[in-house]
């Protein structure tokens, strides 16, 4: 350690001397309120991810990160520069979000950020990034308060849809399909808890009755006791907007519980994936899933899935890869719009200009639909549809409205 210190201080001294002697080019004058990122000719444009890529929630972040990586592959180059993806793990918790944000904020060469994965990360991390002049676009934060005008942080935008929209659509569908008594399950995650609460509120507003609000741990495997408890309340539908592992267990076990043989089941986009169908097994047939309306999805999505399979050897791990792809694409488009190239070929990107350009995104056609960002950063195309799983074979996964689609769009 001591030696390292000696080495470093010598180096610093030496190079200060060198710098004093060497010629210096007149710097480009940056007029941007938040400063500029300068990219020398041949140097890559650095975009960062802030996602959970480690630990039990890793599949969420890895899924999004891969979305970004494919977006980079597709883009190949930006204004003659390659795109370099750097990033930090956020751990799906507030402290991880804060640490990652601090590190990214300290790196002045980063242009923009795709992230965060979990809403708790954004609450702790977004202010730090925003204060540092960075703009972040999240692919999977769905908590309503993040884009609530009272709490919105200037540099924060997202391509994920607000829970308020999805939960409400789910409730409206449930009511419209004749359900009057519903039960909900959440797994203690911000996402599921929020969504089921929005669902419950909207459902009650419509005149329905919430007979039971249950909670589990995401690591639970035996759901039969809690389902038995729910059965005693006599619901006509169970809404469980949770994740693949636990969602699979609930679906697989729900018919084993007496009283629930014919109950309707419904999930949300957290389990809108072939993985879930596989985990849930036969019982998944007839289950409803709310998700972005794929009829509005760009045609590129099937293409995307193919690339994913080739590149990573497996199907997407979670639901937000396409949103991540779009988040990255929006950032790239905005960079193309605002970057200035000066005489010696150096690229200058104004941070405020970039932020403005991202927030000004309009009718951007991405994988998840036509994206338009609101003043508080909600960029998602909030068209939510409800699908019904018609075939429990994951190989038939092909969401849409066509006759042979699976899952098949049933609402609106």
């Amino acid at each position: 350690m001591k030696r390292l210190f000696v080495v470093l201080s010598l180096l610093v001294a030496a190079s200060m001397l060198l710098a004093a002697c060497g010629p210096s080019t007149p710097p480009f004058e940056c007029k941007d309120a938040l400063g500029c990122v300068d990219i020398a000719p041949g140097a890559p444009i650095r975009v960062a991810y802030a996602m959970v890529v480690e630990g039990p929630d890793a599949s969420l972040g890895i899924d999004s990160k891969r979305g970004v990586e494919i977006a980079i592959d597709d883009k190949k180059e930006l204004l003659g520069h390659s795109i370099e993806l750097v990033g930090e793990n956020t751990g799906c918790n507030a402290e991880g979000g804060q640490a990652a944000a601090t590190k990214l904020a300290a790196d002045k060469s980063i242009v923009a950020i795709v992230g965060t994965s979990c809403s708790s990360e954004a609450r702790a991390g977004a202010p730090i990034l925003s204060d540092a002049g960075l703009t972040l676009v999240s692919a999977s934060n769905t908590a309503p308060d993040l884009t609530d005008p009272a709490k919105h942080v200037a540099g924060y935008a997202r391509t994920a849809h607000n829970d308020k929209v999805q939960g409400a659509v789910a409730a409206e569908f449930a009511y419209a399909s004749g359900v009057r008594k519903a039960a909900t399950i959440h797994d203690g995650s911000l996402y599921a808890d929020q969504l089921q609460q929005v669902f419950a509120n909207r459902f009650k507003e419509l005149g329905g009755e919430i007979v039971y609000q249950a909670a589990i741990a995401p690591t639970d495997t035996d759901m039969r006791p809690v389902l038995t408890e729910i059965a005693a309340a006599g619901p006509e539908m169970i809404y469980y907007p949770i994740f693949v592992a636990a969602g699979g267990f609930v679906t697989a076990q729900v018919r084993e519980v007496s009283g629930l043989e014919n109950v309707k089941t419904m999930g949300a986009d957290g389990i809108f994936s072939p993985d879930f169908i596989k985990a849930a097994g036969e019982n998944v047939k007839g289950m409803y899933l709310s998700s972005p309306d794929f009829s509005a999805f760009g045609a590129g999505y099937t293409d995307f899935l193919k690339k994913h399979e080739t590149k990573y050897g497996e199907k997407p791990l979670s639901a937000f890869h396409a949103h991540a792809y779009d988040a990255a694409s929006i950032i790239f488009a905005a960079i193309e719009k605002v970057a200035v190239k000066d005489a010696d070929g150096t690229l200058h990107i104004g941070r405020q200009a970039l932020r403005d350009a991202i927030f000004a995104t309009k009718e951007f056609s991405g994988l998840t639909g036509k994206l338009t960002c609101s003043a508080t950063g909600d960029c998602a195309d909030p068209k939510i549809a409800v699908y019904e799983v018609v075939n429990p074979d994951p190989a038939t996964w092909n969401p849409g409205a066509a006759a042979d689609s699976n899952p098949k769009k049933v609402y609106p």
Partner: protein
Amino acid sequence: MTKSWLKRVSATDVVMWVVSLIIAGIVIYGSISSLQSGKYDGNTWKDLIVYGLTQGSIYALIALGYTLVYGILRMINFAHSEIYMSGPFASYFLASALLTSGFMDKQPWLSLILVALFAMFSSMVIAVSVERIAYRPLRKAPRLAPLITAIGASFFIQYVFKGLFGAGVKNYPELDVLKGQVNIFGLEMYRIHVIVLISAVGLMALLYTLVMKTKLGKAMRAVSEDKDSAALMGINVDQIISTTFAIGGVLAGAAGFLYAIMFRQVSWYMGFIPGLKAFTAAVLGGIGNIPGAMLGGLFLGLIESIGPTLFLAGLGIPAPNQLKDVIAFTLLVFILIFRPTGILGERLATKKA
């Protein structure tokens, strides 16, 4: 006389009685109001008991691994949860190979047995290697050292599995032979539950016979009592310890296999929570005590299953199932207050002055 009686009661005793009374009060009041609410019929309770017993029998099988190792080395084998995970995870690949080749449809029972054996074998290999690499060099170290290696080994195995095989959840095939209900003594039960219960009980009986009736079992008990004397009697202590780990591994692999066919999902983090529960079960029953581990496992499974509904639902607590671990751990404290060495008591040679 009263004065000397009072002198023998410390403030802590009083606090403990009060705590116990409060717990007992909540349990009794909650149970009565749940039972009186009329929301749950006999069938509900029967179902809950069956669920509890199936889950509990898996806990029991894992708990046996903890108890065997604890009995012989006095250490908490934290990596046991990963030993449990590795078996079904490894045999997932066998299962999917059998499925794609069509063999599983033709010979479902044989395939299941093959998969089970492979799971047990894999867990056994991991268990023995962990002992060899991480614990054996620490035989003479104070007990915190192997505890830390165990934690380290646990992380290492988890993340090696995640790194090698991916972070996603893997699904066991759905087999028709495991579906449907059977009628046992007039009780309608799911076939899978029956299979899990019978296999688990069978394995436990086998283990009990092994430890109590065979020469190997006698050697194991001797090593557990006193390693040095056992070595003097010509017992190869290292070999017995390895064997103990192997047996624990086989049982954990079997537990993992039963879990995998019942719940059909395996993943790299599936071991942690059941491992924790099984360890709790082992302590509950009296660590180092084989029947204790079985009893503790079943008891814990049962409490987790019926506890929230029986004790808490009647009190009007929202989402009581969320609190099932709270119930389990509180009962653990409650039981340890009255029986400081678990339900059946510790089977360890404890020395005092």
